[in-house]
């Protein structure tokens, strides 16, 4: 696929824009990415985006950066990854550089606190919306296995604070075992 200048510019501005609004932790980039790259630009599918987030989460480093590397590589190889990393890193780099010059004033500012408090409710709404959409899509597949994994891993992480790395590792292994089981069952039926 031949990617022109306008494609790279779009890729850069999109990731820059997303990163500038990723308040409240790495996962906030997921609803923003889904809206932009899955729903709006239709460059990737939701399933593939979930794979990207899974891989990004399994690697060390920052989730938002890792996810954008996956995205850039998928869309335009190494040069794409370079562009998306640049787009993701520049907003915090610029914002923090400016803030570090007068951070005492920024930290105490009542207006800044008020805006951020309002925004945190908005961020919560955003994640709630994307969670409802994604879990609906999983439930719609009517695959008991996926629904069970979703329920159990949620309880493990949310209620029992199990380390995310273990949860990912175990659900990956269970996925492989379940696929093996289904394959052997299909083979048995064919005979």
């Amino acid at each position: 696929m031949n990617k022109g200048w306008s494609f790279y510019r779009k890729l850069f501005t999109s990731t820059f824009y997303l990163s500038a609004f990723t308040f409240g932790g790495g996962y906030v980039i997921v609803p923003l990415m889904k809206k932009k790259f899955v729903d709006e630009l239709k460059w990737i599918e939701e399933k593939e985006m979930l794979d990207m987030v899974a891989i990004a989460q399994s690697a060390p480093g920052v989730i938002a950066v890792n996810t954008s590397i996956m995205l850039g590589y998928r869309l335009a190889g190494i040069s794409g990854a370079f562009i998306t990393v640049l787009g993701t890193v520049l907003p915090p780099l610029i914002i923090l550089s400016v803030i570090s010059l007068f951070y005492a004033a920024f930290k105490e500012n009542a207006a800044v606190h008020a805006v951020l408090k309002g925004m945190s409710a908005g961020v919560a709404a955003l994640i709630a919306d994307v969670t409802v959409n994604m879990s609906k899509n999983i439930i719609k597949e009517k695959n008991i296995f996926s629904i069970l994994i979703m329920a159990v891993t949620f309880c493990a992480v949310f209620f029992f604070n199990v380390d995310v790395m273990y949860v990912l590792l175990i659900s990956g292994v269970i996925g492989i075992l379940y696929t093996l089981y289904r394959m052997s069952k299909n083979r048995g039926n064919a005979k």
Partner: protein
Amino acid sequence: MIYLQLFWSFFQVGLFSIGGGYAALPLIQKQIVEINHFLTMNEFVDIITISQMTPGPIGINAATFVGMNIKGIPGAIVATVGCVTPSCIIVLTLAYFYYKYRNLWAVQGALSGLRPTVVSLIASAGISILILALFNGYSDSWQNIDFSQFDPWAFILFVIGFIILRKFKANPIYVMLGCGAAGLIIYTI
């Protein structure tokens, strides 16, 4: 060579911060405060506060802040590049193998287990953020909710934002900006 030291210490932060977000905090603290004395503990706590108030991952924020303090803008750039270099190498390798082998049954199987897990990870992070927003930042998990800190305005903003997102498929960024503007009016009056 201060640039090399900056690069190397944030390279380690990027390499060993597994699990993302606040899981990486002790490690960042060790590199910045204890080993290299780039910052005092109080300045480190300030970075955490600022990271909660600005977009962007805490690792990158810390790198920029430390770099700026030590060597100005070139320092900030060197530290940030150090922080993302391990990610670039590791994730690109994983991406290469994912696109090469993703049609293999074993990879498909593993991903069929991982996809629902990612949804539940996002859900879990989302509920923590919601608890933080609704209880004025005093609680972040279901175990330590302080109901006396309940903020009805945050709840109203959350519900309105959620309805606008679901019914009108609004652009999430406008919803965030709208909630920020509403917060400015509500909380400063």
